[in-house]
């Protein structure tokens, strides 16, 4: 497993980025965590629907997204809010979506991030098609797709991996192995020694990286992205991480996992190690931390306010989203609905 920064903040190898850059990644992780905690609170208050927290996975998500170019394609899941945000998807739209509003699924023009996929495994093949189109168009845009350990058991994972390899497409497959698919542990999900080892069966390079090491992830994904962009085809990355919270706000992890595990992983927290690293390098202070948190808090509050200020969706919008132009049949239904 590739890793650059140890849980205690010590460094295994020369870091490829500056302290300023490290601070910026740290700030992004802090902001993401603030969003995550806020979302949990909003859900408890009934202001958003079921929420899938990513706490513990910020290193994987921020590190990966930091390796992408702003116009690259991104296809991720319900748990990828930090990743999507770092790739350009605004917080307020993410919140809007989670209040139960389809308009949250439309990132601004220029942000090529698909709305989160909720069917496990369904979206990886979309990334393949996106990459295929870019290759045919002769562009050097790549497609990045993120998914969980559980998703690797779906048939669609297999077909996506195979197509990407067969057509030598610029796709980066990024598995956040957070040890569980809801209650089902990674150890039972597959008897493969590692998830990364699956890549070989497709003739694709596959590597493992410490998913809680944001700089390690950044480095690994940067390399994969560069390879894809330069025509070397697809590659696969398994980021080893841990979901510190429940699967979703509707889940109770006590039913299926040990507290001791969770404690072990808490020590490997992706934020903690960067903070320790920065501390040693003189780049961290309690004041800065407080400032980060308060700035992030303000931004997230603002995003929530923006989302909550969006007018109630109309039945016309719902019906209008089926096709580019509503058909006569739909217009008739709209008339009936508005009656």
């Amino acid at each position, binding site marked *: 497993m590739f890793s650059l920064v140890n849980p205690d903040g010590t460094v295994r190898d020369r870091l490829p980025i500056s302290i300023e850059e490290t601070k910026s990644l740290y700030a992004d992780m802090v902001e993401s965590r603030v969003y995550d905690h806020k979302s949990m609170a909003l859900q408890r208050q009934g202001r958003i629907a079921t929420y899938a927290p990513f706490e513990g996975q910020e290193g994987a998500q921020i590190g990966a997204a930091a390796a992408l170019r702003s116009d690259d394609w991104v296809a991720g899941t319900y748990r990828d809010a930090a990743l999507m945000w770092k790739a350009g998807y605004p917080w307020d739209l993410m919140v809007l979506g989670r209040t139960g509003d*389809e308009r949250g699924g439309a990132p601004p023009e220029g942000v090529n991030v698909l709305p989160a996929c909720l069917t496990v495994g369904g979206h990886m093949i979309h990334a393949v098609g996106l990459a295929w189109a870019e290759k045919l168009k002769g562009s050097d845009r790549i497609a990045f797709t993120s998914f969980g350990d559980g998703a690797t058991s779906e048939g669609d994972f297999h077909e996506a991996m195979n197509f990407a390899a067969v057509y030598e497409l610029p796709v980066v497959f990024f598995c956040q192995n957070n040890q569980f698919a*809801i209650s089902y542990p990674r150890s039972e999900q*597959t008897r493969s020694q590692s998830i990364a080892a699956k890549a070989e069966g497709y003739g694709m390079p596959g590597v493992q990286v410490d998913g809680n090491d944001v700089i390690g992830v950044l480095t690994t994904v940067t390399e994969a992205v560069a390879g894809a962009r330069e025509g070397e085809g697809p590659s696969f990355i398994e980021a080893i991480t841990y979901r510190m919270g429940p699967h979703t706000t509707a889940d109770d992890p006590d039913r299926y996992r040990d507290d001791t595990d969770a404690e072990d992983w808490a020590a490997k927290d992706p934020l903690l190690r960067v903070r320790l690293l920065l501390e040693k390098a003189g780049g961290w202070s309690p004041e800065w931390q407080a400032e980060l948190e308060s700035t992030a808090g303000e931004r997230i509050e603002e995003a929530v306010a923006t989302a909550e200020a969006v007018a109630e969706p109309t039945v016309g919008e719902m019906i209008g989203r089926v096709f580019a132009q509503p058909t006569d049949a739909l217009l008739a239904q709209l008339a009936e609905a508005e009656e």
Partner: protein
Amino acid sequence: MSVVTLAQALNGGLDLALEKDPNVVLLGEDIGRTGGVFRITDGLREKYGEDRVFDTPVAESGIVGAALGMAIAGLKPVAEIQFLGFSYPAYDQIINHVARMRNRSAHRFTVPMVIRIPFGGGIGAAEHHSESTESIYAHVPGLKVVVPSTPADAKGLLLAAIEDPDPVLLLEPIRLYRAVKEEVDEGDYTTPIGPIRVERSGDDITLFSWGAMMKETRAAAAVLEDDGVSVEVIDIRTLSPLDRDGIAASVEKTGRAVIIHEAPLTAGFGGEIAAVLAERALYSLKAPVRRVTGWDTVFPLKRSESHYLPGVDRIVHAARDILEG
């Protein structure tokens, strides 16, 4: 007898089936350790062990296809798919294999298995978690499709499905899991697969529905009765095989019909019922048949759910229309 919810009735039915027949096994995502996302299998792994209640990888086609193999080899698997919106990866196994093995092998290999799937919206769930695509299953020859709307029927149809020598799809109305309670026999009994259930007898109009929409249908019937209308309420309960005689007989009596379902209108199962009426009860019909259904849109997210779901008002409105018409 005890007063239980629909969810509890299902749990009790599974418990009973596991207890009485060692060939019954359960499999599905998260059904063991957590008892399933809706806790329908709660406690059963603890009680019957890891060799009767299996948690599986996230692979719906695999779950159904493996259950099919188990059934051929003499077990009675009860597979759970977490939500109807996640059943589509298994559609191929269901239509091409589960429902056809008997035909393909001229009765030599048979598939006595059950697929249980929570379905329907109304709880503000995320995308894909509110599907009501029962018609795509009702169209599959060789598959039976049952949809309880009461705790007693839930248990009875579940046990009938497990006993059935052929594959049965049991669609469980999410919105009703914990919304209704009634007395349910704690013992072993079955509710026959096939016949409709006349929930309330009446003379002026028939309301047909199934699953979660029975709730709004009942409520609409109550409103209409307050108006002095004599309403017959029919819970279709088995979509396939369909009780065409029962459906036609009701409208021969009442002369008017409203069909209510949550799925989109076009090619929804309501069309089948309306067709039965147009074929069998035409001369009894005093007014056009009405379907009150979801619109031909994707089931929306929470904020638009009320725009989509057919409510009591729409049902009452349609009924009044044809009562006055």
